[in-house]
């Protein structure tokens, strides 16, 4: 309401008649000052708002409009109808959810112990380790993906070593399938899981664990009854971010899936690049957008998102 938080509340003058305020000196000048402050704040967000309008809201609206046009340019629901009728679309969505769900689960399995370790070691060491965790984000996604291709392919580094060391006889199918897709996706997504988890775990007062031990909880018990619930907001944030990013992930699944793991994003690309069918691609995009929005809304009911995304302080 007023940015400086000046007390204008009803605490003192509650019983007085309203309007008595107008008799005070400088009332108009103070109101004007309030107004200028609010306008000043608005001016600060204006460029960002404009950018979002031009690059997000307008294209999404355009997308929505395209999805409702038939190939002849008339208004129709044929793209949505086709999606409903053709089982291949259902398969695509199923694959997308499968990859997203499995990637999220693997990220949790790998990220939770890592974040726990980072939250237990001294802060300086943890910061160094955190740089290592974030290092992959500084390299091009395409480079990382093709590097995995080199490592995982039939005559790749891993298969050659495995056979030379006698661990397995025939080259394993590590790429152009679900396995390869998951390996690549998890590698890209892991930092997005570790970061919120780590920050949630760091902010847990270790006295809670001491108190639990003092009251008779074994280390395992206090971990499950105290640590895990207190770290839950971080886990949910990480899972939500990873899952949503996976839903629309394109490059890595496309390259490492080798056309065998077809996710919604690949299908959209195909519709545009091969079939030049903007309507069908737009309809897929709209469905993906709606599904993502629904998931965020569902998650918001589960846990307060403002706290999750803002990293609420715990005292």
């Amino acid at each position: 309401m007023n940015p400086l938080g000046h007390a204008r509340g009803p605490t003192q003058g509650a019983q007085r008649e309203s309007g008595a305020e107008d008799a005070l000196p400088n009332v108009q000048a103070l109101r004007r000052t309030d107004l200028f402050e609010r306008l000043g704040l608005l001016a600060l967000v204006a460029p960002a708002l404009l950018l979002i309008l031009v690059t997000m809201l307008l294209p999404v609206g355009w997308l929505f409009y395209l999805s409702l046009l038939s190939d002849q340019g008339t208004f129709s629901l044929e793209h949505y109808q086709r999606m409903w009728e053709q089982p291949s679309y259902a398969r695509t969505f199923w694959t997308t959810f499968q990859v997203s769900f499995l990637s999220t689960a693997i990220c949790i399995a790998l990220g939770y112990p890592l974040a726990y370790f980072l939250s237990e070691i001294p802060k300086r060491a943890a910061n160094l380790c955190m740089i290592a965790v974030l290092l992959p984000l500084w390299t091009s996604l395409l480079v990382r993906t093709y590097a995995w291709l080199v490592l995982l392919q039939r005559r790749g580094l891993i298969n050659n070593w495995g056979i030379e060391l006698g661990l397995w006889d025939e080259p394993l199918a590590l790429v152009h399938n679900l396995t390869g897709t998951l390996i690549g996706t998890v590698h890209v997504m892991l930092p997005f899981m570790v970061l919120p988890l780590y920050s949630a775990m760091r902010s847990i007062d270790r006295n809670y664990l001491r108190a639990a031990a003092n009251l008779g909880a074994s280390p395992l018990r206090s971990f499950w009854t105290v640590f895990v619930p207190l770290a839950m907001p971080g886990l949910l944030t990480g899972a939500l971010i990873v899952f949503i990013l996976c839903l629309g992930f394109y490059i890595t699944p496309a390259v490492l899936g080798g056309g065998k793991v077809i996710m919604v994003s690949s299908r959209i690309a195909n519709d545009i690049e091969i079939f030049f069918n903007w309507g069908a691609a737009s309809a897929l995009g709209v469905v993906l957008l709606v599904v993502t929005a629904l998931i965020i809304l569902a998650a918001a009911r589960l846990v307060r998102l403002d706290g999750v995304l803002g990293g609420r302080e715990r005292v």
Partner: protein
Amino acid sequence: MSNASLPISVSQITKRYGKVFALDHVDLEIRSGEFMTLLGPSGSGKTTLLTVLAGFTRPDGGSLKFGDAEMVCVPPHKRDVGMVFQNYALFPHMSVADNVGFPLKLRRVKPAEIAQRAERALEMVRLGGYGGRGVEQLSGGQRQRVALARAIVFEPRIMLMDEPLSALDKQLREHMQIELRQLHDKLGMTTVYVTHDQREALTMSDRIAVINSGRIMQLDTPRAIYERPKNRFVAEFIGESTFLPVTVAQGRVRLGEQTLRTATPPPADGQRLLMLRPERLRMLGAGEAAGDASNCIDATLVATVYQGDSSLFQVVLGDGTALSVRGASAAGPAPGALLRLAVNVEDTVLLAMEPAA
């Protein structure tokens, strides 16, 4: 509740962080049912000692016994001691009742009994009916009581408290001091209480261990700690005090030209410190005799500081040594006046010569 309590025996407990001794071969016998306060400045090692008792800090060596059982290697969750933390450490994701019931749940008490005993513990700290609330909804004083209820609900025979009142405002703190002491008298558990507040220590304790640099400087009753400090640190840390250098020669204590009498036979010859408490010094009126039981010191008034319930008179002796005298806040003599100060022989305390801390 149970009247069983355990004595605690600490011997040779040592903990070093690098070259610094947090605890330096500490010996401490705490009697069964005693209210023992560990008093010291921050960084003195008092909290480290408490965390050794709780099992959170592993000492480098030494022995710790509850009753006859050696505890030094026992992990915290098997020690069965109650503890109240400085910031209470109430679990924010549990209700008040769940917090208080937590130790009972871990001890596999039946749910119906848990609810009953948790409620009884809450009633004992006068929070009956608060079980359904969330921790975040409580005020600081109420959280303090919940933490207390959680610590007593499983009837531990030893209770540890780490500055439990430091987060409360002054009035509530003084109120809780009395309440805590009453609760201790009612339940009878051996209590170890850590504080840096000397008044709190004097108010609550059976005995006080004054700790500095990882060593116990003096272990005594509150009265003895205040009236008969054994060294300069204790005298300075507790209450107000001023120190005057005196000489002991042939059984006589001399302050400048004057001879002082002491309650105990004077110590061996050499330099000593005379400790004087401002409130134990009296300003004698004109022609008033000091009496047989008092020593007399001449001084000049320099300034008067009005402090409400009393005034602090700053005086200097003949050789220029500054001294404080506490007196009634009614108008005193004007600055520059010559004064005669009297102090009871009982309050004339001699200490070993030590530089100020």
